[in-house]
């Protein structure tokens, strides 16, 4: 028996891009990590499955079908630590765009719209079904953050998940603010940890890591209108892309799992 930390990957409603991001890490880093962890289930990269106890489970994807609850509970029961892996699992991510709409099914699936496995309700974070210990935020999740969180857990430390906005990272990078360039941005309410690459590359932050714990949404809308030049309608809808479930008007209140 190996005394390495056993880790497993599971997926729900998602593009599985966060798991692919893991394999994108490159040989050196990924193989090095395998000296310290044993991957016991990872559908994207191996065919073996496990029914044994797991030390850390990484769950990708949102919880959007009641029928998935049992599988999630089973993973929880077998795992010491559950980590919501990527935006869809952590906040519902982009899937939650459907939560304020009702006409998407026919548009997306056409003649297959009534097939039973497509029956779904709100796209919710995994934490809506089971207790989640930590979240690896972002679309996709950040592999450096992944290494940091896994390392902390391997060493028995509590990883710190950022609860400060993207503005912090733009300032540290000395990026010229989007608002100064006549653009707009969601960085003031968006959870950081990504290193703020988007504003540095000249595009606004879309808050793909969701909101900080206590975003000032009213001030966001005012700023988007007054400084960003957006209409009220657009300003109010602007943060739905990735953060629909983090908003005050979300149909389901997110329990933030970040300790």
């Amino acid at each position, binding site marked *: 028996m190996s005394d390495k930390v056993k880790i497993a990957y599971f997926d729900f409603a998602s593009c599985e891009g966060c798991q692919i991001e893991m394999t994108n890490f490159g040989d050196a880093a990924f193989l090095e*990590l395998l000296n310290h962890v044993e991957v016991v289930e990872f559908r994207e990269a191996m065919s073996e499955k496990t029914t044994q106890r797991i030390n850390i489970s990484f769950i990708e994807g949102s919880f959007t079908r009641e029928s998935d609850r049992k599988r999630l509970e089973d993973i929880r029961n077998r795992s010491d630590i559950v980590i919501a892996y990527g935006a869809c699992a952590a906040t519902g991510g982009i899937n939650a765009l459907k939560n304020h709409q009702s006409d998407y099914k026919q548009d997306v699936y056409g003649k297959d719209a009534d097939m039973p496995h497509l029956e779904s309700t709100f796209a919710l974070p995994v934490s809506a079904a089971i207790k989640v210990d930590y979240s690896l935020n972002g679309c996709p999740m950040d592999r450096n953050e992944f290494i940091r969180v896994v*390392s902390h857990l391997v060493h028995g430390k509590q990883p710190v998940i950022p609860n*400060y*906005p993207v503005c*912090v990272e733009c300032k*540290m990078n000395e990026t*010229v603010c989007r608002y100064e360039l006549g653009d707009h941005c969601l960085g003031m309410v968006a959870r950081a940890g990504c290193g703020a690459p988007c504003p540095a590359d000249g595009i606004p932050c879309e808050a793909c890591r969701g909101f900080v714990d206590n975003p*000032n949404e*009213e001030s966001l809308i005012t700023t988007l209108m007054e400084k960003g030049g957006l209409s009220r309608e657009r300003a109010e809808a602007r943060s739905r892309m990735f953060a629909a479930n983090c908003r005050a008007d979300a149909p389901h209140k997110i329990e933030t799992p970040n300790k």
Partner: protein
Amino acid sequence: MNAYFIKDTDFTQFLGKMIEAHKVVGPKAKKTRFVFDQIKKPEDLRLDYDVTILPPKKLFFPPRQELVRFHGQKASSCIHPEGTILFGVHFYDIKAIDMTDQLFRETNPDWNYLANRECSTIIGSNIQNVYKRAFFSSVGKGVEPKGHDGFITKISGGYVYDAITAKGKNLLKFGAFTDATEAQLTEASKANKEVLDKCPEKLNNESLEISEKVRNQFKSPMWKEFSEKCFSCGSCNLVCPTCYCFDVQDNWNVDQQTGVRERTWDGCLLEDFSTCSLTGGHKENFRETRASRYRHRIMRKTSYLTAKLGGPACVGCGRCAGACTADIADPVPVINRLMEV
């Protein structure tokens, strides 16, 4: 005689020789703004800058700084200072560096800062263009800029260079300097005096009065009003030349044996700054509301540090006002209103 003159036509050559011999950091253009960065070509130096996004303290106290590298139980220092010439610092930033020098030196000297600081040469420059949010002429008027090694002032036809220390005199060898004439000195002193009248914003009271009165407004309901739009994004802290708070974390490399203890800038406007761990996995935030965090920053700048620093912990650069997307961070209207109560 420590005052010299160099002609415009000789200045480029002076810069060229200096950057050939030393690492020189100075103001450079970045899109619509300016940043302190390494000057590799004389034409990159923009002494006509108004203000930089981050203050020059980042040279001694970078946003992310490795403190210790470790390998298992063994640790080694990350202090490897590189002698740098910091060229073209406005007087308000010189004042701020003097404050962070004092704060990092007191009690338990912080060598991660001081090692970088002590091997640097700081050359000030006059303000050719005033930032749209600046109020440097009405804050801490009794606090003289000090701690720099030289100061250069643009006048007609060239620059007057005041070589203050031996380090400052060391730069003379790179250029065709002559002794400055009385007329040139008068022109330089006039330029430095006149710029003080050009600040777009102004505090209505003296720093000592402000210090006392603002402190007495601790329970004012106005803090809530001032901070209503606050995002708690910390931008005002992060661009401030006198803010010096940081967070320290250990991070392992992927090999799980080696790693780095790193410090990163922190700020009292951020919600987690004042959040403490308690036993049993509980947390407590001792400045839980936006208003209390907002008040704390203004108090730190106007009142809490004045006894220690001999003046306010604010130099009037206006960076916080410009960096605040909600536009509520500007201390001038806030202080002026509190003084009217």
